[in-house]
């Protein structure tokens, strides 16, 4: 059990000497959200392309008075870059074993939950069931810990996924470049990593032990994935853990600085909020109300107009249905966060409670009614 500093790498972890973390932390530490005035917010809203200063203004409390204007501008930019398209995908949990302890998560080591890991035959059955709904994009997830779900196991799951889907992404523990290369060779194109919070002190407190505890190794995960040839990377902070304006700022800048270094990288951002978990029903997103969440999402859109914004089923249907007309370009559908639930009975417990339980067909017809176009695949795997 390690009580080392969160900045200390473990021996198996590759260092890539990137400047991005330094840049992000410098910006975040000098951000004082109370200093921004309504005049600065208006100036930011009127600028043709948003500067980092402008982003800070739009995330500040002063901007909450301009939510309607933010939404208006964000909607215009979303339409300009994405038209009527909304991409659909679903997450598939391969395993809920976990060797880390993160206080906000139901999968943490030591929690008395039903653990399970899908066998190859079970992976196929799950994928078949998902593909039967018409989806063509899948996101594979596991808990942390190579002991239970090795890199080879995940790579094999990607390879199988390629038989059923056109687009395969992973949201698993962070890896070294050569490990990401193995996934990429087996058909994986997208890597999503949630930093949870960019406040290292807070990070240290809530990541009690396990590989996930090493803050900069996790932070540089997206960059290692891009070095391994991945097409795109996803970012997210779990809003509500720390001061959410700072975490939102850091998320957007993390993506922004990486994009400067890797112009081809396709970006996607998500903004999950804390949800109740097994064993702790009281966890809540605190001051991150829906209005503040919308403010964050609009600021993301205006700062990075070309990036995908993903809204998960952690949010209620009524919120999701509106947000896809303003900022979101990608939503999950037909979600089950238990293990093995798509094709039969669930054999492992859920990670958190979802708020939108609609099937793919239901989401599809909701989009149709809203005159939006469901896009099942927005990528082609060309090796």
């Amino acid at each position, binding site marked *: 059990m390690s009580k080392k500093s969160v900045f200390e790498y473990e021996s198996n972890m590759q260092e890539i000497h990137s400047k991005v973390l330094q840049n992000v932390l410098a910006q975040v530490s000098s951000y004082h959200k109370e200093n921004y005035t309504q005049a600065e917010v208006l100036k930011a809203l009127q600028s043709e392309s948003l500067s980092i200063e402008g982003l800070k203004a739009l995330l500040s409390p002063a901007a909450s008075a301009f939510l309607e204007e933010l939404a208006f501008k964000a909607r215009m930019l979303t*339409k300009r870059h994405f*038209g009527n398209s909304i991409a659909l995908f679903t997450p598939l949990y391969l395993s809920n074993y976990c060797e880390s302890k993160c206080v906000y998560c139901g999968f943490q080591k030591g929690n008395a939950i039903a653990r399970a890991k899908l066998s190859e035959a079970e992976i196929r059955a799950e994928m078949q069931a998902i593909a039967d709904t018409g989806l063509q994009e899948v996101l594979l997830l596991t808990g942390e810990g190579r002991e239970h779900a090795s890199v080879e196991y995940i790579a094999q799951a990607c390879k199988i996924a390629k038989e059923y889907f056109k687009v395969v992404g992973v949201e698993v523990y962070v890896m070294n470049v050569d490990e990401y290369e193995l996934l990429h060779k087996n058909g994986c194109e997208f890597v999503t990593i949630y930093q949870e919070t960019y406040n290292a002190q807070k990070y240290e407190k809530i990541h009690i032990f396990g590989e996930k505890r090493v803050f900069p190794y996790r932070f540089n995960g997206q960059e290692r994935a891009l070095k391994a040839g991945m097409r795109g990377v996803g970012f997210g902070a779990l809003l509500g853990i720390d001061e959410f304006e700072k975490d939102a700022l850091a998320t957007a800048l993390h993506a922004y600085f990486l994009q400067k270094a890797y*112009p081809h990288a396709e970006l996607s951002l998500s903004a999950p909020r804390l949800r109740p978990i097994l064993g702790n029903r009281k966890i809540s997103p605190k001051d991150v109300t829906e209005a503040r969440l919308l403010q964050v999402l609009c600021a993301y859109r205006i700062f990075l107009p070309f990036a995908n914004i993903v809204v998960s089923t952690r949010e209620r249907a009524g919120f999701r249905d509106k947000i896809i007309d303003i900022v979101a370009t990608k939503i999950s559908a037909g979600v089950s966060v238990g293990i093995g639930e798509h094709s039969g009975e669930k054999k492992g417990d859920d990670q958190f409670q979802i708020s939108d339980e609609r099937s793919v067909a239901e989401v*599809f017809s909701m989009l149709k009614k809203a005159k*939006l176009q469901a896009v*099942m*695949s927005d990528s082609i795997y060309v*090796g």
Partner: protein
Amino acid sequence: MHTLKLGKFEFNSRFILGSGKFSLELIEAAIKEANVEIITLALRRAHTGKLENILDYIPKNITILPNTSGARTAEEALKIAQLARELCGAEMIKIEVIRDSKYLLPDNYESIKAVELLAKEGFTPLPYMYPDLYAARAMRDAGAAAIMPLGAPIGTNKGLRTKDFIQILLDELDLPIIVDAGLGSPAQACEAMQMGVSAVMINTAIALSSNIPQMARAFKLAIEAGREGFLAGIAGQSKLARASSPLTGFLRD
């Protein structure tokens, strides 16, 4: 005499409809109103899944122009073109090679290579490009059936920001030129056609209009008007005065 010739293919309409930002019913409406004969299709989106199929919304007499969007290198563009040929038998392919996810500007260097690769494989390549004379010549020499310079960055609706450079291409290249990306209003499409480009491609400007069929019709009329104007010969504007009784009419020999 006035048909649009792209390689061995011929068309009466000079209005190419982009499909990336539409919903399928809207594509159907736009096709009906605008007499388009060519519609682009991003191969990466070609299957809309079991719930819906884009090909059901496109009438059989319309030519599908698959694009290679998603390709970052010439080799990837070739692979996508080959998939497109398998999927819908397409020979004419719009080459898009883009290595910048922010501005989506075409990479001319890779696109030249892609034209070469695709032409060798028997495709009729139509490269999306940044209007650069050297690149355009290289694409022509490599076997492009037309070139598709951008008017302005994708989705911006800013119009013919690259007008002067497109004019150079028109003056120097004996190859159909199709303005792709950036045209935001019927007037801008008309302006491009008046310059003498062979066709224009429109997507965002129609997809984001609040009355799609009507906007599609407006573009159709503007494109036709621009073409007629070009053929009739627009009287050139001159900064220099030209008196109706010339000052130099006294000269002999």
